[in-house]
């Protein structure tokens, strides 16, 4: 059970129960859809990008607790940040969920996203945590394509 609590930390369960920014975004000028074909997770990320700044961001879709909480916390972390800062945080996040267990992270850099550090003990769930970020990346690239975590 201890490993499971590592994965399903209270903050993750909370964001799963009450996802933030969980709606379609009126006035979005960037959007992309993401799929995880393994488990059927589906997410759409909406962004209103102005002068390189994420003025507003939201998501919709269905997925497991990890992907939903990841999307929710991603949107909460990025509102008002630049797209470049978003990409940088994605890189840090990706490292955190795929890193060796011995690696520690600077809490200032990852902030609340540290809750996802337990994901690295569950390699099959990494795709759940990163799907929203991959989808956001596609949205910001402006290609409007569907991304797949496979």
């Amino acid at each position: 059970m201890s490993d499971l609590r590592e994965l399903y930390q209270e903050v993750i369960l909370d964001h799963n129960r009450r996802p933030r920014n969980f709606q379609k975004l009126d006035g979005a000028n960037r959007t992309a859809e993401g799929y995880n074909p393994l488990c059927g997770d589906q997410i759409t990320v909406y962004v209103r990008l102005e002068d390189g700044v994420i003025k507003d961001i939201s998501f919709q879709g269905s997925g497991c607790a990890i992907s939903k909480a990841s999307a929710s916390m991603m949107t909460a972390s990025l509102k008002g940040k630049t797209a470049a800062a978003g990409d940088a945080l994605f890189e840090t996040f990706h490292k955190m969920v795929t890193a060796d267990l011995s690696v520690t992270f600077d809490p200032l850099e990852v902030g609340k996203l540290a809750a996802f550090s337990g994901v690295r003990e569950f390699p099959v769930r990494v795709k759940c945590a990163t799907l929203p970020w991959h989808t956001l990346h596609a949205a910001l690239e402006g290609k409007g394509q569907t991304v797949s975590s496979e």
Partner: protein
Amino acid sequence: MKAVNQVAAADTLGGPRVAFNVERIREDFPILKQQVHGKPLVYLDSAATSQKPKVVIDTVTQYYLAENSNVHRGIHFLSEQATRAFEDSRAKVARFLNASTDQEIVFVRGATEGINLVAQSFGRMRVKAGDEIIISAMEHHSNIVPWQILCQETGAVLRVVPINDHGEFLVDEYAKLLNAKTRLVSVVHVSNALGTINPVKRIVEMAHSRGVPVLIDGAQAAPHLTVDVRQLDCDFYVFSGHKAFGPTGVGVVYGKAHHLEAMPPYQVGGDMILSVTFEKTLYNVIPFKFEAGTPHIAGVIGLGAAIDYLDGVGLDRIAAYESGLLAYATEAVSAVPGVRLIGTAKEKASIVTFVLEGVHAHDIGTILDQEGIAIRTGHHCAQPVLQRFGVPATARASLAFYNTRGEIDALVRGIRKVTELFG
């Protein structure tokens, strides 16, 4: 093999069959003894792939140790031995399905390739623009996509028989869809996502009354039910070896001989020809016409061993045991608060699919895995079924005759743990 030998011995003595002893059956499956995450493995994912009895593993090992050689080619001793073992397996499969002759058994990689073979060879020969192909709303992707492609290629139209809220095939709707344009019907025998056993004999009769041939996808049926292709009178029947306690990478197409004779080859190359010049190629006779290239010899021989094993235990006794286990599991799982069963057909086999309120199936899968319990979560390669029931993903516990009531109890404890964690 100990248990099976004892069963066989009792049978040959003409006495009553010994009671089904699941603990002795489990002895035949070495993998079931292991621990996962420090807990005894509870394997409830046999619909994805079944575990293999030791006799199958030993047969494959023995082939590579002492018999390895190519089939239908050599005049040397080993090749003759391998060919004999390979063709013996074909005879076993023919008997297993009650086919009229061994020639009606074609070895392929699995049920998926089997359906592709029928679609690309028989389908292309038979289907033209404006024609219709009928499938059902509970098909696996492997019995949807090959027909979609055939429709795109030919201009034919795919028609889908709907299912009711229990996940049952609607025979009346099927009757309405059958018409003068129908060229082919392809339906699943047992649904992988819902467990529904379809009335395939009736489905075949109704199609035949209009002269329409029928393919039955038996991937989930062959490991659980006695299949008699002559009694069903189906035109084609496909199944996968690995779901029927045999090796992966081997499957079977049963086809009525007159269909197979008339069909063009599916893949071409070695072993499927009689003579080749640069001007003309003469194809081999059935079933070899459909077996281009060196086949999965070890797999085919292993499948033969799996069929012997199933014969020894008895599919009738397997079905009876599994039916009791399914009833137990259905009651126990549905009693957990928040659980909703998906697939509640009257006629069902070995599958308990469910959703848990407020919890995604993938999370259920991870938490159960920590308890050593293996289930399948997601869309089970049957996305239209999930769309029909309005759920993005489900959790599926699929049973085999090596599962026990104790394992069902462990599953229920696991689901309660999920509820606690997400509570």
